[in-house]
């Protein structure tokens, strides 16, 4: 068995790359897959806190590359999911500490014992992005249904094609169905038409993401989280299942508005 290496990137920062990486990692591990989440955002480490593993870091990926520890020593095993690992970024170095070949070598070593290596890329289109792209067998683009995020996603998709790492797959994150319904947000179909790439998933804006990040307990672990459900669906699609795309037409958008109209409470 050899792992699939998937790089999660976006162009624009703050669209939810790290949250996406953590939650897909968790969701794949819930499906019994052996997963490594690799934080390639050197100097701006965050995958550790999103996964809730920040207190257990001793070594990081730069220590591995520079030979200060063995690969296994730097990998942190998740207590909730014993087949999920984090390989943390260094917080005291910068992007120049890891070259594309270095990361490719680390991923090569991880491949034999795992099913998936998920690389959380740095934002931007510079060195950090190029490094995260080098080991990729496939690329997942995360965007928000918003003008600047979609524009940056388009730029990154072009660069991925030029690097012959395409075709990238798209996740539309933080969709607000009620804003779409009232004509104030791009819908998934609009984004797909503009970017002309394959859709991997749609994740609704969901407060449970903030709460789960506060606690270091990814939403994909929570049965009732809508965003968590979307991430679990994405994982199943990655495993080849034909899972229909969510429309989110039911709640809290239209139903809530209809409920208000008839004097019902606006619970979602």
């Amino acid at each position, binding site marked *: 068995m050899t792992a699939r290496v998937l790089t999660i990137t976006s162009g624009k920062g703050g669209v939810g790359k790290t949250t996406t990486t953590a939650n897909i990692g968790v969701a794949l591990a819930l499906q019994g897959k052996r997963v490594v989440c690799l934080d390639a955002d050197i100097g701006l480490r965050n995958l550790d806190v999103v996964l809730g593993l920040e207190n257990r870091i001793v070594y990081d990926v730069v220590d591995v590359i520079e030979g200060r520890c063995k690969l296994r020593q730097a990998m942190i095993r998740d207590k909730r999911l014993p087949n999920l690992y984090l390989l943390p970024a260094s917080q005291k170095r910068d992007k120049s500490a890891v070259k594309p070949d270095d990361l490719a070598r680390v991923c090569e070593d991880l491949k034999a014992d795992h099913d998936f290596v998920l690389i959380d890329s740095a934002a931007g289109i510079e060195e950090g992005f190029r490094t995260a792209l080098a080991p990729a067998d496939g690329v997942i683009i995360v965007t928000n249904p*918003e*003008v600047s995020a*979609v*524009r940056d996603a*388009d*730029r990154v*998709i*072009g660069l991925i*094609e030029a690097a012959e790492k395409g075709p990238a797959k798209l996740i539309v994150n933080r969709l607000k169905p009620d804003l*779409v*319904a*009232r*004509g*104030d*947000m*791009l*819908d998934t179909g*609009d984004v797909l*038409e*503009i*970017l*002309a*790439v394959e859709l991997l998933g749609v994740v609704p804006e969901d407060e449970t993401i903030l709460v789960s990040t506060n606690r270091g307990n990814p939403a994909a672990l929570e049965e009732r989280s809508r965003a968590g459900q979307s991430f679990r669906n994405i994982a199943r699609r990655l495993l080849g299942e034909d899972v229909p795309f969510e429309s989110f037409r039911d709640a809290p958008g239209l139903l809530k508005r209809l409920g208000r109209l008839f004097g019902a409470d606006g619970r979602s």
Partner: protein
Amino acid sequence: MNILNRLLGQKPPSSRDTAKQRLQLVLVHDRSQISPGMLDLLKDEIIAVISKHIEIDRAGVQVTFSQEGRDNKLVADIPLANGRRARGPS
């Protein structure tokens, strides 16, 4: 929702539609790396070249991009002076 708005009154286009149109336009220039100014320059030169051989309606010339998937093409719409329209993709 959008159709309803339009039926009920002449409201301006939704911000969703505006966002989509603006994105489509800006991405055409991003992808081709041809700025709006460059497009005007191209148009002027196309008019100059064609006018040497054929009489055209200069004011009616349109040079635009069209998108098919992730591929863009440059489309020049060049009306002839006698009223017939000639259409030539570059």
